């Protein structure tokens, strides 16, 4: 079996996406606390759920990026495009 090599650049990009997703999940939590007038302590007590939401957001970005990459491939856009870029 061939070794899979993930370039450092790609790891950096994926970590950035994950960070953005985590920030987005926290913003959603803050919005929900304000909108539904619940306790601010939920920012801490619901962190496990926020992290779970962050991974869901991240999964959505993967699907979207594959979709965009596929469309570009089909429409003959510049050949160097790869999923996630």
């Amino acid at each position: 079996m061939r070794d899979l090599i993930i370039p450092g650049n790609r790891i950096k990009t994926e970590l950035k996406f994950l960070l953005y997703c985590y920030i987005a999940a926290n913003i959603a939590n803050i919005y929900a606390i304000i909108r539904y007038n619940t306790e601010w302590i939920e920012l801490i007590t619901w962190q496990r759920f926020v992290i779970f939401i962050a991974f869901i957001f991240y999964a959505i970005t993967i699907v979207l990026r594959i979709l965009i990459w596929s469309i570009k491939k089909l429409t003959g856009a510049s050949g160097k495009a790869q999923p996630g870029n």
Partner: protein
Amino acid sequence: MLEQNRRAFLRNSLLAGTAVLTPFSLMKLLAGEKGKIISPNDKIHVGIIGTGSRGHHLAYLIKEYGHEIGMEVTALCDVYQPHLDHTHAMIPEAKTYKDHRKMLEDARELDGVIICTPLFVHAEPTIDALETGLHVLCEKAMERTLEATYAMAEAHYRTGKALHIGHQRLFDPKFLRGMNKVYEGDLGKVTQIRAFWHRNNDWRRPVPEDQPELERFINWRLYRDYSCGLLTELASHHIQVANWVKKDIPVDVRGTGSISFWKDGREVEDNVALIFTYKDGTQFIYDSMIQNRRHGLEVQVLGHKGTLELETNNFFLEDPPPQKPAGIIQLLHDLEENVLGKVPIGSSSWDPEVAMTYKGEPIVPENLTDGTWEQFTGFAKAIREDKPIPGLFEEGYYGSIWTLLGQQAIDSGKVIQIPKKYNISKFLM
């Protein structure tokens, strides 16, 4: 009123060390008569009659914590030498006696007596001590028979000396606070009280192999001449609590019991059930067994607005405030509804009425004590002030009387009411 007295007492008991003698009590003190008022700075000397497991435990508590209330054990009495030696080894400075009458002859050195003998020998040392002018703390239940129980009451009222019965729940903060909730109406109308006490053991104490003749002496709890078993040793506590909740005594009791598991020659039931009815229609349902301990012990006070579970320090509202979900859950729920819309699903025509999952709230924030030590605080106060705490004896008396009437109901298969002669309201007029 009784509750107020108790709360005031508990509050004041903290100030026992700074109590002030009244002119009247000072006169009694100067007169040097027995029943002296004791200065808060003086030590209270108590004797323990009966140094078996309970007596030894209470002696240990006084030895360890007695300095908090100025109490110390100076005399020990037991007819069974191994028990006497065991407790004497813990408190070697105490004088030892094999006959309580000899101990009471030296009563000048004593201010109070704690009775931890087997049930059927509570009355004699209690009455002798009261007549000697000593205050008495006697373990529950009061006695094996109605007549002996009544004789103890008569001696208490005749001598004016305190006779506290070992119902420590009267001093337990969660029970005190729970009673306030009942009286303040937080439970609504209380129409049912349920209590149970379940264990899983044979309830036997080891008998020396070379002295089988001591079987009835050591395992007196298992024989009808000396005990009513689960009723006098356990149920009397919860019967007292039920009367306390209702501020009343039952109208009648019915019951059943059997030796259904431990068929080892014992004479007392190992499986009992009683129903006490109060005049407002409240039912107090009690059961006890010693072949399953899944549910342990509990007293449940059921009102139309709420429930108390006193032993485990819980209070439940019938209609608890709705629990608000976390904001992010509400957000997701709204998103889901907006995206998917509401899907109408027919509800079932009948839902199983299983227990509420609502976890309730504690009656007191910290459940640190069962009232045993606080009971000594009350006893010390009664000794220092040379007078009983109002209302306390009556709780113990009726708890014991209705325990014995419960046994009568089991034995006869009839509905039993209290004979008029055992009503002690005449002493309170």
